[in-house]
């Protein structure tokens, strides 16, 4: 028999396909179709926060030292941060495998 890739049955799916639990989109991993990832060169970075401002998915956050890093659970690899970085500190690197 062919493999069934359904994650829910028609008899067990929620009423009207409603999502009955609020706020659970945070649990949904959305960064797994990325084809390239941003890599920040901390030597060049001036902590200006342009990447954080421009990221359309709000994937960037500041670490303890003030550098910006993208959360790979949510980064889609669009490359806007690399394009906007005034110091060319961000390089887009192809995801392997």
């Amino acid at each position, binding site marked *: 028999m062919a493999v069934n*890739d359904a994650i829910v049955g028609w008899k067990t799916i929620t009423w*009207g396909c*409603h999502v009955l639990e609020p706020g659970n989109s945070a649990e949904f991993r959305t960064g797994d179709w990325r084809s390239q990832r941003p890599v920040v060169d901390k030597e060049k970075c001036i902590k200006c926060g342009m990447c954080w401002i421009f990221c359309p998915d709000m994937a960037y956050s500041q670490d303890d030292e003030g550098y910006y890093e993208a959360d790979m659970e949510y980064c889609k690899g669009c490359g806007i941060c690399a394009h906007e970085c005034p110091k060319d500190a961000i390089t887009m690197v192809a995801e392997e495998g």
Partner: protein
Amino acid sequence: MAKRIGVEVSIAIAEAVKLAKAEVIPAYPITPQTHIVEHLSEVVANGELDAEFIPVESEHAAMSACCGSSAAGARTFTSSSSQGLSLMSEVLYIPPAMRLPIVNVVANRAMSAPISIWNDHQDIMVQRDIGWIQTFAENGQEAVDLTLHAFRVAEDRRVSLPIIVNIDGFTLSHVIEPIELPDQEDVDAYIPPFKPKYKLDPRKPITMGPVGIPEVYTEAKMLQDQVIKNSKKVILKAWKEFAEQFGREYNPVETYRTEDAEIMLVTMGSISETAMTAVDKMRDAGKSVGLVRIRLWRPFPGPEFRKAAGKAKVLAVIDRTLPPGALCGPVGAELRSLFYKIPGSPKIFSFVAGLGGRDVTVARFEEIVEKATGYAKKRPKELYEVIGVREK
């Protein structure tokens, strides 16, 4: 006691919506539906009906507002027709999937071009697969009764689906008929207050209408199909209780003089009244003719139709739309599927009549029966024939 009064059918439908105590009415006027929403806006403005009447900027907005108000738990009504119904189309698919029990009376009208404000069934047939329960009224009283029935069925939690009540534009909408409007207390007893299973409530947030990824979508659609099929039980029970409450009986399929009839006409909507007159005339002339009328179009009442018409030798099916390039009209196609390869089932011939307000007269029904009789002996080349079309 309910009184029988002479009243325009559109006004009577609006009065039925008032009796049903609709709470939100987002609507945009379009001929021939206009009088329904016009009268409703009046009864809301006069304080006779405690409802929000939302004069929206388009039918797309009307149906969007309907989804919002129904999701918030309000009894919701709208009405449309033709181009307006098509402008709603993008949104029409959403309430059945989200289980929002909106009631929509559609005054059936032809589609442009050429521009036609007159009656046929093309507007609703292009919306055949939107997933709404769909009924067709034959006369003004039935239009009122089906509207009340629609609220009762739609909001039943076992159903929780939107319903379209089809009424023929002008033929029904603009005609004054003797109609019995039921008493408020009887309607209150028949239609209990709307208590949705889920509603949009900031105190208990839920998400309606999320993305259905490929691993979920098929299951969501399968469930939707099962829900509308299972709704038939509730539809039938609500008609039975309607008969007990108001004394008028309705069935998914009605028959007229079909006892031992060899040929049966199949119709939907108001032309059925003319068809009955035609059947009487042909019966008087010794022809074995009867009439089967489909009242419930979605979910399609297959077993009921087979029971009503299965013994006929010939079915002459009348479609009031001409889908260009199709094998035949939607009603004809449905019945051919229903009887396909069933031994001893009737021969089915499809006719297109009554487009864009063209009258379907007694003489036309006689012509259809005559042609179907001939086709039973010699099969026609095409699967359908356009009736009453002038060549030169």
